[in-house]
C-alpha cells in the first residue's frame, strides 16, 4: 500500500514537467531526425517523400551553406577570443580593489540584459550613421564608414556587437573564479618578488582554468547559435556575407520552404555544436589544476 502511494507521489511530482519536456524537446527532436530524410515543402496537402540521405548529400553541394559554415567558423573564432579577452580584462580591473569596482561591474554587465535583437538595432544605427559621421569629422573615413554595407567588414561588426553583449557575462564568471583564489597565495608570490605578469600567468590563469572551461563553452555555443543579433544587425547581408548557421537554417525552412533539406542542416548543426562544445570541455577540463 505504502509503496503504491510512493509511486503515485513520485508521478505527481515528476511527471508534469517531464511530459511537457517530452512534448517540447524530445519528441520534436526524434521527429526532426525523421524529417531530415524526407523532402517536403511544408504544405500539409503535399506529399512527404522519403529520400534517404539525399538531403545530407545536397548540403555539401549547397554553396550558401558552405559559405555560412565558413562565416560561422570565422565569427566563432573571433568572437571567442574577443569576448574572453575583454571579459578577463574587465574582471581583473574590477577585482583590483578600487572603490569604483561595483559600479563598473554593474555597467559592464548591462548590455547582456538588453537582449540580442535590441542590441543589434542600437548598433545598426551606430554603424550606419554614427561611424559615417565620426569618419567625416575625424577624416579617418577608411576606418569609420558604414561597416554593414561592406561584405568584408560586416562580419567584424557582428563580432563587436556580440562581444559587447557577452563580455560582461564572462566577466561575472571570471570574477567568481578570481575571488576563489586564496589571498595567501597571492601575498606569498608578492613577497617572493613575483611581478604582476608572473603572478597572472603562473598563479591566476592556471587557477582560473575552471572559469575558462565555462566561459569558452558559453561563448562557443553562444556564437554558434547566434540568431537575433544577426537578424537585427545585418539580416544576413550584404550578399549573404553574414548569414550564419542559425539564420541559414531558418531561411532554408521558413524562407524557401525546403523543410527536409533545412532539417537535415539542423541535424548537422546539432552534431557540430555537440561535438565542438564537448571536445572543448574535455580539453579544458584536463588542464584544470587542483589547489
Amino acid at each position, binding site marked *: 500500500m505504502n509503496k503504491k502511494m510512493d509511486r503515485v507521489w513520485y508521478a505527481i511530482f515528476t511527471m508534469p514537467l517531464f511530459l511537457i519536456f517530452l512534448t517540447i524537446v524530445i519528441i520534436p*527532436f526524434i521527429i526532426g531526425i525523421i*524529417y531530415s530524410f524526407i523532402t517536403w515543402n511544408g504544405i500539409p496537402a503535399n506529399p512527404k517523400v522519403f529520400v534517404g540521405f539525399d538531403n545530407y548529400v545536397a548540403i555539401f553541394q549547397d554553396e550558401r551553406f558552405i559559405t555560412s559554415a565558413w562565416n560561422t567558423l570565422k565569427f566563432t573564432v573571433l568572437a571567442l577570443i574577443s569576448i574572453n579577452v575583454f571579459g578577463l580584462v574587465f574582471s581583473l580591473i574590477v577585482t583590483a580593489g578600487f572603490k569604483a*569596482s561595483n559600479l563598473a561591474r554593474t*555597467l559592464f554587465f548591462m548590455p547582456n540584459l538588453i537582449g540580442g535583437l535590441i542590441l543589434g*538595432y*542600437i548598433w545598426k544605427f551606430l554603424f550606419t*550613421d554614427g561611424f559615417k*559621421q565620426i569618419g567625416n569629422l575625424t577624416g579617418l573615413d577608411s576606418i569609420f564608414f558604414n561597416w554593414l554595407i561592406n561584405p568584408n567588414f560586416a562580419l567584424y561588426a557582428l563580432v563587436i556587437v556580440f562581444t559587447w553583449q557577452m563580455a560582461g557575462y564572462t566577466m561575472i564568471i571570471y570574477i567568481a573564479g578570481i575571488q576563489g583564489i586564496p589571498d595567501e597565495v597571492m601575498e606569498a608570490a608578492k613577497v617572493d618578488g613575483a611581478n604582476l605578469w608572473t603572478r597572472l600567468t603562473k598563479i591566476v590563469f592556471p587557477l582560473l582554468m575552471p572559469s575558462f572551461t565555462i566561459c569558452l563553452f558559453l561563448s562557443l555555443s553562444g556564437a554558434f547559435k547566434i540568431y537575433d543579433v544577426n537578424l537585427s544587425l545585418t539580416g544576413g547581408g550584404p550578399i549573404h556575407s553574414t548569414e550564419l548557421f542559425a539564420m541559414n537554417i531558418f531561411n532554408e525552412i521558413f524562407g524557401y520552404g525546403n523543410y527536409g533539406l533545412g532539417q537535415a542542416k*539542423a541535424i548537422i*548543426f546539432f552534431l557540430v555544436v555537440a561535438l565542438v562544445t564537448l571536445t572543448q570541455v574535455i580539453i579544458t577540463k584536463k588542464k584544470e589544476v587542483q589547489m
Partner: protein
Amino acid sequence: MKATGRTITSILIVILALLFLSPIYIMLVNSFKTRSELYENALALPSSFSFEYYQKAMEKMNFLHVFFNSAYVTIVTVICVVVLASMTAWMLVRKDNLMSKIIFYSFVATMLIPFQTLMMPLMQVMDWIRTNLHIPMLNTHGGLIFMNIGFHAGIAVFLYHGFMKSIPIALEEAATLDGCSKFGLFWRIVFPLLKTITVTVAILDIIATWNDYLLPSLVLSDKGLRTIQLSTFYFFGEFTIVWNQAMAGLTLTIIPIVIFYAFAQKYIIKGVAAGAVK
C-alpha cells in the same frame, strides 16, 4: 599620494565603463533630436528635449499593450518553471533509482540541442496537437508559455538537482514521522530551503523569456499577442529610416530592463554567476 593615485584609477575605471556603454548614450540622445539635428551630429546632445518621438513610438509599437503581454508571458513562465522544476528535482534526488537517473540525464543531455534543430518539428507537433486534440497551442500566450516551460526545464532541473543534494535529509524525516504529507513536506519544509537557487533559476528565466525573439515569432501571429521583442522587430521593419523615432522606440524597450536591473542588481549578478558556474 597613494590615495590620489587610487582615486584617479577609480575615475579611469568609471570612464572606461561609461565608454563601454556609449552606444546607449548615443541611442538616448538621438531619441530626442529632430531629423536634421541627428544627421548633423549623431554624438552631440540635443538642443531641446522633445518627447514627440516617444509618443509616436509608443503609439506605433502599442507599447503598454506589448509590455503587459511580455510581462504576463514572463511571469507565468517563471512561476511554472520554479514550481514544476523544484518538485521534479526534489523527487529525482530523494528517489535515486534507475527511473530518476533516466529522467535526470534526459533533461541534462538535451540541453545541448540548439533551438534551430527543434523549431520546425516543434511547430509540426504543436499543429498536430491543435488539429487532433483541439488544444490551441499556436497563436496563444498559453501555448508560448507551455513551450517556454519545456525549453527551460532542463537547466532549471539541473540547477535545483545540484543544490538539493546539499540539503540534509534529517528535517524531512522528522516531518514525515510527524505525519506530514509529501505536498506539505515539500512546500513547507523543503521549498523554503531552496530560496537561493530559486532566485537564480527565476532570474535566468526572466532574462531568457523577456529577451526571446525567435520562439514568439514562430508561435504568435496575431498583432494583439505580440511581445516587446516582436513589436520591436515589426516596428523596425516599418521605420528603419526614421532613426530618431526608432531610437525612441529602442529606449522605451530598455527602460523596463534598466528598472529591473536597478532593483535586483545584486541578485542578478549573483544569480547569473551561480547559474553559469554550476
